[in-house]
């Protein structure tokens, strides 16, 4: 049973990350590979505040999105002049800088040794230290993120994001300052991603730079492409499938090391097959 709770916690964390990625990339059409960086910013903010300053993880669930949001604001303003592929490359550069900084800034991030001993969340006398209790917390955060994403997708703000994805230049004709909308959704996406990072840090109690590489961002891309671009349900379905399918390999007798490597192969193969045969993904309406 604990194994099922463990998998469900991972699905919840990746569900949050996929929803955030979908908001930026699916709804607004902003190609970004910085998802893992904001996920990492959330995780490192929680880890540093909790281990070095004794912050409660619940407090870091509020602080981490603010930190990620401010960094995203700075990055978003700096990258405002880039569009499409150029924006994608700029966000890749940001992810590489982030990863290099956390890997080498030993005094703060622990460098390549990472940060261990991250506490479990606790409130009053209640500590979320069992898989079930942590699952409840992860699901609560997931449902809050689902609520935010559904609210945005049904709002006039969400409609403008969809129009930006379709034809940004046509939208400018009506007086829209599209760069402001893109900046806003980039910041919101970063804030939501950081929540996933806080949960991960507290759940596995140890983080290092290897968790927040370009592979992780590609996994998020694969999730939303598989589930269906610009669909919140699609992002959740993508997270569910791409967490459970590799896990299923263990039941076919593959050793853990091989199963881990095959995970990357499965993500890669799925992306290739989707681009060839179902570019809209399972539930999607739009191509990437």
């Amino acid at each position: 049973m604990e194994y099922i709770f463990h998998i469900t916690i991972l699905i919840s964390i990746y569900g949050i990350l996929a929803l955030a990625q979908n908001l930026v990339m699916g709804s607004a059409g902003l190609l970004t590979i910085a998802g893992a960086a904001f996920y990492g910013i959330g995780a490192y903010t929680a880890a540093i505040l909790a281990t070095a300053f004794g912050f409660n993880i619940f407090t870091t669930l509020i602080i981490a999105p603010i930190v990620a949001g401010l960094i995203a604001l700075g990055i978003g303003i700096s990258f405002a002049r880039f569009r499409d592929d150029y924006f994608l490359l700029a966000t890749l550069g940001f992810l590489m800088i982030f990863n290099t900084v956390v890997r080498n800034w030993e005094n703060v991030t622990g460098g390549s040794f990472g940060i261990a001993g991250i506490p479990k969340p606790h409130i009053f006398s209640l500590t979320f230290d069992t898989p079930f209790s942590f699952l409840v917390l992860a699901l609560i955060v997931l449902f809050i993120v689902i609520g935010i994403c559904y609210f945005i997708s049904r709002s006039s703000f969400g409609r403008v994001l969809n129009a930006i994805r379709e034809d940004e230049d046509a939208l400018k004709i009506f007086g829209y300052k599209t760069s402001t909308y893109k900046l806003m959704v980039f910041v919101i996406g970063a804030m939501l991603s950081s929540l996933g990072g806080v949960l991960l840090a507290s759940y596995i109690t140890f983080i290092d730079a290897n968790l927040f590489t370009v592979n992780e961002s590609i996994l998020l891309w694969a999730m939303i492409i598989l589930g269906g671009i610009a669909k919140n349900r699609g992002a959740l379905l993508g997270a569910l499938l791409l967490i459970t399918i590799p896990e299923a390999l263990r039941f076919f007798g593959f050793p853990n090391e091989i199963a881990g490597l095959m995970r990357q192969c499965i993500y890669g193969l799925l992306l290739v097959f989707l681009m060839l045969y179902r570019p809209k993904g399972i539930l999607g309406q739009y191509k990437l």
Partner: protein
Amino acid sequence: MEKGLLLELKNVSAGYNETKIIHDISLAIDEGEIVALMGPNGAGKSTILKAIFGLITHIGDVLLEGEKIYPSPHELVKMGVAYVPQGRRVFNNLTVKENLELGGYSLKDNKECMRRAEHLFNLFPALHAKHDKLAGTLSGGQQQLLSTARGLMTEPKLLLLDEPTLGLSPKVVKEIFQTIKDINQNKKTAILVVEHNLHSLLPITNRAYVLVHGKIVATDTGSNIAKSDILERVFMGKI
């Protein structure tokens, strides 16, 4: 009653990057007028509209109601100028109503936006019938109506229409020109229209400018242009 001068271009030149497309263009549009820009492909008709609307940079003066302006789409929409681009550019995955509401961005007041959308649905019954359908499912003619209606959401003083009948059947072209005439008469909206369909357009225009290679080579009333041989000479490459 004499009509006031609404828009004036004085010696405007513009183009893309280093290449100038229009050279020292001077033209004027009075309130409530329909003015046509005509000429062969590459004459610079659409470039004039883009320069007026601030989509490309220009040198020379653009004056709106006598005031020199430095056009940007954001500011011009607020000043009462709307631009309907070539190729319709509707948002295919949004409904007809959502497309219209996007056109009313500068209104800020949501109720006013709804009221104007309802008003436009009355003006364009074909759109009303499809208000909850995705714009991508509409025919070319309906998409053009939607694109034009979207430009009218702000009740502009001046509507810039770029090739509104491009790729449409003769029957739909007739409907589009009737719509342009109705908008002009009912709302007193001045319209600057770029169009290839000269025979349908000239009878409804107050004035027409004929362009060749980025320069104005003739200007007169629509009926006089239609009677003269200027268009024949221009399109046969004799000018």
